[in-house]
């Protein structure tokens, strides 16, 4: 204690203390910077390998279930034994939803809200499929109880399964956004330490210049240079990374989110269209919902999700795909209007044909095309996310070991530079 107190009164004592302090700040700055950058790298890897696939799994559950609901209604409307294509589609929907649910449940962790949704989905999905199969068994025997079972199944789907799937998707998308936010956040701790270290180096060199009348100290200049290199390199890398993550967000995940919502609305509307015909005049609620949902797919309003997605599209190919989607959505709405005219005009059989037939102007054809466009754009959005986020990761290549080495160089410079001056006092 007394030694330290005495040493502050002498120049060599002061120099020793300065050297120690500088080395400590350098070490802390190096460690904090390396850890921060490593954390960013990990976040980016996690986004690509974990977070985005899980959000995709959650939306897979959502759209597979919506599709199953719409397909079951179409199959029922086709009369007799349902066409093989619809049966296959329904079965694939259920298998995809089940598989995605398994993946999504592995990630629930401590989030009790997400856990609740997974519990609802995994408990009610078998119940739903049981009801649909009971409906099918009754249909095969020509019993109208089949229609009642199908209505019960659809009610369960719309009242419990779809809201849970939607909630789960929202939770996963929020987590994805939070992690992107995290990747782009400014590393304040490291920046403050850099500033402190830089200031300390400048002050030390000014002190030495005053005391020794020598302008430059090679060791400390080297340390400063290492500091500048580290600062420039990591700032540039972080800026590039941030730009990539921003692109991944805008053209990737946000674009996908808008498209997911558009696709879900389209599927719901398609189910409404067929259920109106199944109910045969007894389903005014379905037609009302159709009208609401269709405003999110056509028109010039701000609610038009397809136009929103087009505005977010990265490349010309995706924009073309979405322009086709806009056109096909308009064709579908026209086909729907025709169905309603036919049905309201008493031509029920023709209305059913216009809804589920494979004529080029049928609602089924327009909807299938629209769905294809949206799937293509969705996949393009996911690819864009992957490319940009991977690019962000590449921008940080070598930065962590680089910063560590530069910190060591700075420490060596400080040690050598001050030891040289201390030697002059012996």
């Amino acid at each position, binding site marked *: 204690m007394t030694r330290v107190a005495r040493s502050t009164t002498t120049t060599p004592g002061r120099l020793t203390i300065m050297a120690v302090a500088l080395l400590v700040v350098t070490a802390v700055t190096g460690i904090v910077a390396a850890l921060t950058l490593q954390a960013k790298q990990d976040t980016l890897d996690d986004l690509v390998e974990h977070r985005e696939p899980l959000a995709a799994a959650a939306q897979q559950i959502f759209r597979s279930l919506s599709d199953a609901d719409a397909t079951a209604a179409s199959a029922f409307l086709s009369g007799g034994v349902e066409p093989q294509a619809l049966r296959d589609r329904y079965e694939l929907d259920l298998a995809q939803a089940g598989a995605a649910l398994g993946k999504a449940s592995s990630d629930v962790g401590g989030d009790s809200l997400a856990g609740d949704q997974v519990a609802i989905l995994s408990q009610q999905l078998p119940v739903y499929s049981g009801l649909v199969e009971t409906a099918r068994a009754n249909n095969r025997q020509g019993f109208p109880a089949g229609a009642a079972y199908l209505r*019960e199944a*659809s009610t369960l789907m719309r009242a419990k399964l779809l809201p849970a799937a939607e909630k789960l998707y929202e939770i996963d998308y929020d987590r994805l956004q939070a992690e992107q936010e995290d990747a782009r956040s400014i590393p304040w701790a490291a920046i403050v330490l850099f500033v402190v270290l830089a200031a300390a180096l400048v002050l030390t060199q000014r002190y030495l210049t005053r005391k020794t009348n020598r302008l430059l100290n090679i060791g400390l200049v080297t340390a400063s240079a290492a500091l500048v290199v580290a600062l420039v390199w990591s700032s540039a890398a972080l800026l590039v990374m941030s730009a990539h993550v921003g692109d991944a967000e805008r053209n990737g995940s946000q674009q996908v989110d808008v498209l997911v919502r558009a696709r879900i609305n389209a599927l719901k509307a398609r189910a409404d269209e067929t259920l109106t015909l199944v109910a*045969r005049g007894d389903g005014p609620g379905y037609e009302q919902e159709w009208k609401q949902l269709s405003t999110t797919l056509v028109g010039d309003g701000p609610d038009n999700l397809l136009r929103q997605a087009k505005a977010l599209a990265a490349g010309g190919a995706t924009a073309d795909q979405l322009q086709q989607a806009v056109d096909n959505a308009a064709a579908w709405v026209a086909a729907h209007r025709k169905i309603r005219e036919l049905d309201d005009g008493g031509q029920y059989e023709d209305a059913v044909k216009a809804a589920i037939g494979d004529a080029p102007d049928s609602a089924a054809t327009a909807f299938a095309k629209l769905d294809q466009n949206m799937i293509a754009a969705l996949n393009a959005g996911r690819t864009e996310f992957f490319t940009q986020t991977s690019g962000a990761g590449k921008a940080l290549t070598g930065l962590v070991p680089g910063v560590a080495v530069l910190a060591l160089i700075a420490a060596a410079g400080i040690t050598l530079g001050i030891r040289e001056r201390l030697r002059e006092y012996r």
Partner: protein
Amino acid sequence: MSHRRKWRLAGLLAAAAALCTACSATGSPVDLATVTSVERPQPAGVEVNPGSSTGTAAPVPPCDPNASLRPGPLPPAGQMPAGSTMKAIQDRGRLIAGVDQNTFLFGFRNPTSNALEGFDIDRVREIAEAIFGDPNKVQYKVITSAERIDALKKGEVDIVVRTMTATCARWVDINFSATYYVAGQRIVVDRASQITGVDQLGGKRVCAAKGSTSIMKLRESPAPPEVVAVDNWSDCLVMLQQGQVVAVSTDDTILAGMVAQDPNVKLVGPRFTEEPYGIGIPKQSEDMVRFVNGVLERSIASGTWTASYNRWLGQATEPAAPPAPRYRD
């Protein structure tokens, strides 16, 4: 001596150690997924003990619900008299009929052909045949029991043929044709059930359609059950098959349609009401009432009624003679 003491000490220590291990594990095994009850799926729009919707306080004038308006001579098909309700329908090109698509044997959608069929649908086709000479010129509008009166009052449909009981309360709002069938309320239960009559249903869950006369009769029962009200009669069969209700109570004809779909349920107890079915027609269209009554008389006289009865209800219920029409004028 010291040897034995040593051993005793070792034994004590071991016992203490064992005790400590035991007392450190005071908790119980962890259950990651605990499910103790199951939420059962329900048909859309189920209500338990709903408030009485038809409980209008206005006194109902006494009447003979079976007595309709006397028909005149039937005009030939396709030549409806000018200015008549039938002429308006002929000019429109189709008859709009409110029907059911969920009641087996009366009005139901044949899942194989997608077409509506049944005893009620045959009545609609007869009327279309009489107006147009073509039984297919019909636009079917599916309505629930609860929607029948409103659909007629708002003019959304020309006729309602949907297992509809003619009552004095309904005569206030709409007209009925002559009675075309007489049903009676009974109950259907699971084959293994011990219930044999409506008096044993007190406090039990019993299904019936909203806005039906059956639901009112259940409420008025001396042993009132817990009424589960649904939109369509087939929803009742679903709930009975799923064990969510112990019985369904309504007209024996509708119940016969349930027995025909499921051999594991049975009709029990005697008829405890009489339900004369009439075709519902808007209040202002008296010419239409007379016309429809003419069509019914002709159908009964020509044997078409009996053929239709035998096709749909012959096996399910006992052979019945067509009801004799009664008129109030």
